[in-house]
């Protein structure tokens, strides 16, 4: 259960950013939508008696409310806790303890909030107040202990695992949350039962310990990981208004999430209209449709959620940020860019490849091989869904300077390459290379059941139609040298730029 890490660590499920032309799409995609609006995409591929199933919820961390940052991610974790049936020996009794737990938590939260005023106005009562807080914590622990007697621990995982599940996980990104698993194909109905059950009757058991697990995940993935630490500062600096500014959740807010926060988010965004399922493998569409009706059709329609209205405000000048950490120098340069449906988006995706794909890409060739000033250099877009992002993100260049080379020198060499894009049209051979790669990747991306299922499920939530895959490919192949120059000149400006640098500290130095 993980958040998708964008930045120097890429999500590797599917490397391709390309899409099929209808005539080149080698697998028939069958599509149906239930009365409640939930869409299913099916590809029959009987190579081996297995299938991959992906459910994509249009419910990512960008939709979290201030004060409840971390909701989407914690909810994703809680979706593995089972349901009213799975993971419990007695749901009704267990539920009574949760009500008590939540009530004690609310008292605890209020007491913690009041602490500063007790300290200020009634210091003589502070000891008593702190003891009261401690007693509430103890009470909460004992209630959690009591409710745990009904828990069949990790049963949701166990029921899948014992049937041979592979690739079993979920990931929370900015615009989407994906739940995925591969199973032997004669376990198809298990997938329908398990997935529909947790979407209909989720049960947020073991809530407070899972909140602590999410905190450990942040420590592991951000606070003690130099690349992620740097990226968190970059994104926080590049965005002022838009929710893409948060790389990971805030510890302080996770510590205060409640079951109600999760339920509110679930009710708002896990609506059937906002869920897409894709199944690829040794299955029959008719059977899938029958099971979909049986298991998913009774999820009631709920109101469509609001989109994100917030737009990033125009940047007014270059922004710079430093991270002091016990690690070697690193550098990230970000430029604000477009959303997936912008006319400028295809040019950005071609530029991404021109600058950063393979050993002959411009930055690798120039900085790593010819000038030898970088250990490595790479390029991506953020948030970085392989099919595009719902709202305007940023275009990133990452570099690790070699020993003895300053970040400043590397930065200037990167700007030189960006200027070449603006000054000189890309020649035909180089552009043909990119387009050949787009075509090749399009073929490779359907190599695995899971990769294909993941892309199909995502397209519907992103673009409302899986045929966007072919639109996207067509648009990418239509990019001209003039488009590249125009987009580079418009976006790769000093004013539109944010630069984050990692400055090494010695052991023990204050961070």
């Amino acid at each position: 259960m993980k958040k998708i890490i964008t930045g120097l660590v890429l999500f590797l499920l599917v490397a391709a950013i390309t899409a099929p032309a209808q005539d080149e799409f080698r697998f028939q995609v069958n599509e149906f939508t239930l009365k409640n609006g939930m869409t299913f995409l099916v590809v029959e591929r009987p190579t081996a008696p297995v299938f991959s199933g992906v459910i994509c919820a249009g419910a990512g961390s960008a939709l979290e409310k201030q004060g409840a940052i971390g909701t989407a991610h914690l909810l994703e974790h809680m979706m593995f806790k089972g349901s009213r049936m799975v993971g419990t020996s007695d749901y009704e009794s267990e539920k009574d303890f949760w009500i008590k737990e939540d009530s004690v938590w609310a008292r605890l939260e209020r007491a913690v909030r009041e602490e500063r005023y007790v300290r200020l106005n009634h210091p003589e009562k502070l000891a008593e107040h702190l003891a009261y807080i401690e007693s509430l914590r103890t009470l909460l622990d004992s209630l959690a202990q009591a409710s745990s007697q009904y828990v069949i621990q990790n049963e949701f995982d166990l029921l899948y695992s014992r049937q041979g599940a592979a690739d079993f996980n979920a990931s929370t990104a900015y615009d989407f949350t994906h739940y995925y698993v591969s199973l032997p194909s004669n376990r198809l109905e298990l997938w329908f039962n398990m997935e529909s059950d947790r979407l209909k009757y989720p049960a947020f058991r073991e809530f407070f310990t899972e909140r602590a697990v999410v905190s450990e995940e942040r420590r592991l993935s951000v606070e003690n990981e130099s690349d992620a630490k740097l990226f968190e500062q970059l994104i926080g600096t590049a965005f002022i208004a838009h929710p893409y500014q948060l790389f990971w959740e805030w510890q302080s807010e996770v510590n205060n999430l409640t079951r109600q926060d999760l339920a509110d988010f679930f009710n708002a965004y896990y609506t059937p209209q906002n869920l897409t399922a894709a199944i690829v493998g040794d299955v029959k569409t008719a059977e899938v449709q029958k099971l979909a009706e049986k298991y998913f059709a009774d999820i009631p329609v709920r109101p469509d959620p609001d989109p994100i209205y917030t737009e990033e405000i125009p940047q007014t000048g270059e922004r710079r940020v430093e991270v002091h950490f016990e690690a070697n120098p690193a550098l990230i340069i970000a430029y604000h860019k477009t959303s997936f449906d912008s006319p400028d988006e295809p040019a950005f995706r071609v530029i991404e490849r021109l600058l950063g794909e393979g050993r002959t890409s411009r930055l690798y060739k120039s900085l790593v091989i010819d000038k030898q000033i970088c250990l490595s250099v790479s390029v991506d877009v953020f948030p970085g869904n392989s099919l595009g992002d719902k709202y305007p993100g940023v275009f990133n260049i990452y570099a690790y300077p070699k020993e003895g080379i300053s970040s400043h020198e590397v930065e200037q060499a990167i700007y030189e390459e960006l200027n070449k894009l603006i000054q000189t049209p890309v020649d035909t051979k180089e552009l043909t290379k990119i387009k050949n790669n787009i075509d090749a990747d399009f073929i490779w991306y359907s190599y695995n059941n899971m990769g294909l299922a993941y892309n199909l499920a995502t397209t519907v939530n992103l673009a409302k139609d899986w045929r966007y895959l072919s639109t996207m490919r067509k648009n990418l192949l239509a990019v001209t040298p003039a488009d590249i120059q125009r987009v580079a000149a418009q976006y790769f400006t000093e004013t539109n730029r944010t630069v984050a640098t990692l400055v090494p500290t010695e052991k023990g130095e204050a961070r």
Partner: protein
Amino acid sequence: MKTLQIFLAVIMIIPALGLAQVNPRDMKFPAIEFNPAEPERFVTDNGMVIYFLEDHQLPVVTLDAYFKGGTIYDPADKTGLTGIMAALLRSGGAGKRTPDQVDQDLDFVGARISSQAADHALILELNILKKDIDLGLTLLADMLLKPKFDSARLALELSNAMDNVRRQNDDPHGISRRVFYQTVYGSHPYGQFATLESLGKIARTDIMAQSGRFYHPDNCILAVAGDLTYKELQDLIKKYFGVWPRGMKPLETIAKAQAGFKPGVYYAEKDINQANLRLGHLCMTDDNPDRHAMEVMNYALGGGGFSSRITGQVRTSAGLAYSVGTYNYLRPLMGPLFGYCQTKAESMSQALQMILDIIEEVKQKGITAEEMDLAKDALINGYVFNYDTPAKLVNAKAMLELRGFPSDQLEKDLITLQALTLEKCNEVAKFYLDTKNIAIVVVGDEKLFDKPLATFGPVTKVSMEIK
């Protein structure tokens, strides 16, 4: 948003309208019927072994070339040589092409060739569209038959490898891994890591000599799957590799690793707010007949993710870690059994003690029949995923042959797994599990730990100096 009122009703999830469905725990499923296609196997006149499966779903070909050899054959004073050699085979030019020309020709058609050194194998991998197969094989054959090992590219590979050494303490996970292997393997090849000094000694002549030990047709196993016919592949292999002369000489035998480390805590100081733990000892080789019982026992102990005791207790019940578990790493010259955990510094000892207690409990009392059944079901039912694409199947067969196992070893493993008894699983638990004679590697800041490291044994502070 936080709500201020005390909740008097359970959190409402808008419920579905339908009748309750059958509980997934009561669903029953038939056994998985799967008879995977048997790959073609043929041997060329010059000794190449080829596994092949036709797969015409997509116009692509995957080809993996395996050679016996690997990083364990690094000369004692030149650790890193084999890895640099493998990288330079790909990056250093081939046949008539300069390094840049190789890159340009591959990139132009969106093809990939990678070359890597593992501990016991050299592996080249080609992924290419069928229409470009001649280009791909030309380049692959040139790399193997006519490598150029360009000097300037060698200098670059070495300089980048040195930069990676300089960065080796940036990432806590990398430190705990390195320190653990250095500790439990000591002077054995498995415990060696490249240093600035060892890399500084590598010359082009070393690269050529080292590559001459491995890259021969009579040491090569190919795994090919994709949009070709058997006849097409045979002709291609003959055309591109037919002139490659035999030349393999036996590789020296390397002794198995022996436990010789001092049990205790190995502490690597780093200014971070988590403790990164790795603890364990040498356990068994990859052909040990107890390995299946060990796999099942370890699944229940800490290898089976959420279905294992350690994950269940440390993560799910106590909330002390996101990533925690145990791994029985099977290696030909003796693998380690180790636990791992990353927890906030303030709960270092709490998490470590829990892991040790669970291991000790399983050693003393064994796992339950229920746990064993779950592990067996998971492993047996998941078996099909070893074989679910033609590429996986031919690669599995190639690797078995490379490692000296019979070609039906996976089927044999399945039968052994099915026949395992609880007595056997608990016998291996008692025999192999150990919480006393172990190395406990801790990366972090001891000032923040909840108990002194000395609680867990004599503490050795590991030097983080870059050499």
